């Protein structure tokens, strides 16, 4: 026996520090931990190796007796063989498995949002007071023709002759991105749907059908058609504001989804239309799309199925050739393109893929917008930027770079109480968000969640109005793609060229 009891070589990351004097032994912390990281032995005791720092125990403790700290155990410093790498190797040596991780790329790649600054009016043109003056954020997602035609009516008025393709309207340019029932709980999905309805925006069902409790919100729901075709039938397509063909996801470009059998509980089985306990496999690719003209075929198959009543969006991960791909998608007849950058989150992805594949949304978005403009087809499609939009600031810069709207997922989950412990793949989320365990999911009250999401969207919208005001415009379309109002700080010439912005001072 090389190691006594085959003990894992992986060291605990965190430890729970419990103030024995403050603790009144109510055991709420023990009950609240989804990971079973606390036990009672003559008082509350932490099981360090199980703690993921989700802070649920800290939050529920009525006495403020718990805090979570980093484990003090140190490795001898080595700038190349870091502790996280050593432990990943231990993990694979112990299990022989592909290391799974959740949420977005964690590596320290440059965030271009953090190197972009926004212009403001001074003297030569006036800024606008967004509180008292009109400020318009209404956004239409869908295909727009090159021109419109009018005709004279018999009483000598003009009326619109062109029949505009179907668009969906957003009261503010924010969408809740695709998170499936399975990756998150029904309670979380309901909170998102309720908030989307109240804010006049959209939420995305993610792959795997639409649970019947979400049916009342259908006018605010984008339904997804992914490679596994779970839950996809005619009713599902019709019960929507828009249909999204999911080709890729920023956190795991080029690979698909896999909902493990243990998460396929009764509500998921019903929604995905598969038996309880079976793996739900939706690997890339779509097996009716092996080429760009096949995408056209699926787009029009969906349009035919809904008799041209629903816009069709195509979601892709931001990859090297994203500009050419987006051009092809536009020409294939899509009404919108959802571009997901490599910071995009996930409920589970191989860590190697999450951390090493894809490109930043800022660069992808700029490249796509440029390419579509060069080809004269930008108006034919709406661009939704996603994958690492953290704040209103990021959203505003994305719009300036050319996005019609942004989609948020991780930020929305944080609004719902997520503490970024990045353990979604375990299904143990103590906050009732990324879990299907009924005792955990019932902690998340959809009404409470919806209110917090509404607050978030309202706050971001107000911040967007503030910025539009200081830019001296009173409609978001005057800033959309207006890169003249953005500048880079500390970026090199290549980066500035791709972003299509000047350096600050120029």
């Amino acid at each position, binding site marked *: 026996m090389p190691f006594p009891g085959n003990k894992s070589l992986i060291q605990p990351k965190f430890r729970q520090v419990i103030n024995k004097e403050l603790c009144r032994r109510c055991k709420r912390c023990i009950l609240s931990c989804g990971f079973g990281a606390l036990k009672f032995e003559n008082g509350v005791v932490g099981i360090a190796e199980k703690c993921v720092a989700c802070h649920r125990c800290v939050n529920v403790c009525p006495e403020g007796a718990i805090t979570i700290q980093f484990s003090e155990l140190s490795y001898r410093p080595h700038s190349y063989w870091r502790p996280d790498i050593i432990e990943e190797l231990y993990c694979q040596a112990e299990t022989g498995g592909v290391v799974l991780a959740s949420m977005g790329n964690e590596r320290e790649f440059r965030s271009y949002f953090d190197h972009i600054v926004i212009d403001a009016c001074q003297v030569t043109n006036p800024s606008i007071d967004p509180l008292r003056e009109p400020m318009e954020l209404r956004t239409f997602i869908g295909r727009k023709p090159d021109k419109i035609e009018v005709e004279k009516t018999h009483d000598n008025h003009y009326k619109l002759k062109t029949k505009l393709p179907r668009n969906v309207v957003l009261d503010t340019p924010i969408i809740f991105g695709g998170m499936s029932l399975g990756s998150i709980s029904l309670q979380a999905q309901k909170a998102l749907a309720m908030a989307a309805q109240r804010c006049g925006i959209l939420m995305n069902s993610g792959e795997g059908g639409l649970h019947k409790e979400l049916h009342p919100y259908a006018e605010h729901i984008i339904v997804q058609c992914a490679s596994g075709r779970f839950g996809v039938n005619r009713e599902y397509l019709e019960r929507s504001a828009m249909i999204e063909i999911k080709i890729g996801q920023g956190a795991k470009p080029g690979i698909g989804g896999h909902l493990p059998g243990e998460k396929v509980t009764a509500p998921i089985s019903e929604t995905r239309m598969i038996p309880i306990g079976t793996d739900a496999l939706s690997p890339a690719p779509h097996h009716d799309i*092996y*080429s*760009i*003209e*096949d995408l*056209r*075929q699926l787009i029009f198959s969906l349009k035919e199925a809904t008799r041209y009543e629903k816009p069709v969006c195509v979601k892709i991960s931001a990859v090297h*050739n994203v*500009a*050419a*791909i987006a*051009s*092809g998608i536009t*020409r*294939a007849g899509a009404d919108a393109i959802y571009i997901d950058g490599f910071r995009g989150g996930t409920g589970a992805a191989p860590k190697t893929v999450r951390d090493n594949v894809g490109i930043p949304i800022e660069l992808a978005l700029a490249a796509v917008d440029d*390419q579509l403009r*060069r*080809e004269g087809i930008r108006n034919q499609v709406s661009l939704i930027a996603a994958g690492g939009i953290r704040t209103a600031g990021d959203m505003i810069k994305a719009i300036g770079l050319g996005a019609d709207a942004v989609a948020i997922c991780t930020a929305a989950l944080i609004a719902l109480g997520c503490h970024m412990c990045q353990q979604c793949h375990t299904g143990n989320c103590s906050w009732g968000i990324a879990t299907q365990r009924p005792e955990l999911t019932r902690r998340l009250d959809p009404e409470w969640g919806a209110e917090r999401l509404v607050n978030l969207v309202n706050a971001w919208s107000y911040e967007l109005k503030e910025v539009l005001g200081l830019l001296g415009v009173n409609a978001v379309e005057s800033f959309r793609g207006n890169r003249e109002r953005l500048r880079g700080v500390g970026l090199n010439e290549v980066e500035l060229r791709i972003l299509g912005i000047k350096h600050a001072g120029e």
Partner: protein
Amino acid sequence: MREISGCGHIGIFDQSGKLYDGELVMRAIAAMHERGNGLGGGFAVYGCYPEYRDYYAFHLIFDDEHVRKEAESFLEEKFFIEYAEPIPVEQSKRLYTEKSSGINPEEERPEIVPPLLWRYFAKTQKSDSEKHISDDDYVVSMVMHINEKIDGAYVISSGKNMGVFKGVGYAEDLAEFFKIADYRGYAWVGHTRFPTNTPGWWGGAHPFTLLDWAVTHNGEISSYGINKRHLEMFGYKCTLMTDTEVMTYILDLLIRRHKLPIEIALKAVAPPFWKNIDRMPDEERELIKALRMVYGSLMVNGPFAIIFAWSRGMVGINDRIKLRPMVAGVKGERVFISSEESAIREICPEPDRVWNPRAGQPVIAELKEEPEYAVSRK
């Protein structure tokens, strides 16, 4: 930027050498209108210039008259030019395509806006130091020179008794523009394109050619990067950044220069899986193993269906796991290779046989008799 494009294509080959006009290929490609997006189409025809059959037929495009003069002075230096003329064209009247189930009558189709289009019938004119070079190799290097060095000039085709007509627009509109129905040949290839890159360049359309090779391609070659780098070691210059260019050079290298039989060359391009190689009889296994070891960098990986033609034959083949469609049909001595069965049925409603070839298994048509040309030989 790398070009990515999807498409539909059709090849028709008459093994008895019987000549027929371009209306067939035109109707077949119109039936697959949905597979293109109006940004490219083209046709190759074999047997169309019998009066000049011993001359290299060069089809060129030029941005302007100045470039034409420059390219022509180069051609005159390197070749003996028997005859030159603008390629005859007329704005598409859309006579044939109005009546195709492939075409939406409500759709507006763009006008054809051509560059200068010329053709030259020529023989090589080598200097003493070039005498040892074969005619074909000489032509290849001259084509490479024009494409790379003369900005604004581009060689569309360079084979004997064959020609390529291609450009930007819907394939069926280009067919009428080039008056395809006026040409007669024993073999035709048609292609409709769905590119995802900046439109507007006529050279980027298919078929892609070199000498009498004409290649059309449906799919995207995921191995493009390494295929290109391997070809560059053998003197090919991949200036177009298209998958199809690479495919053409791979075939030229393996079949013309390395003299591999076509079936074997195709095994290098779309080789069997190791799982199945391991089960082969010794002799076959050693051959395929060697092909994979030597030509591993030329394996074409990713979704593709290609049709390639030359003056003696035509082949259709697709990738190892059949990610692109390919249908074949036979009627008497006439062989059809297509992206969709409906295109074959459009021009041959009752074929003797129609089938879906398995992955990596080529459909090969070859001339069994010499074509009989109506014109006297020059």
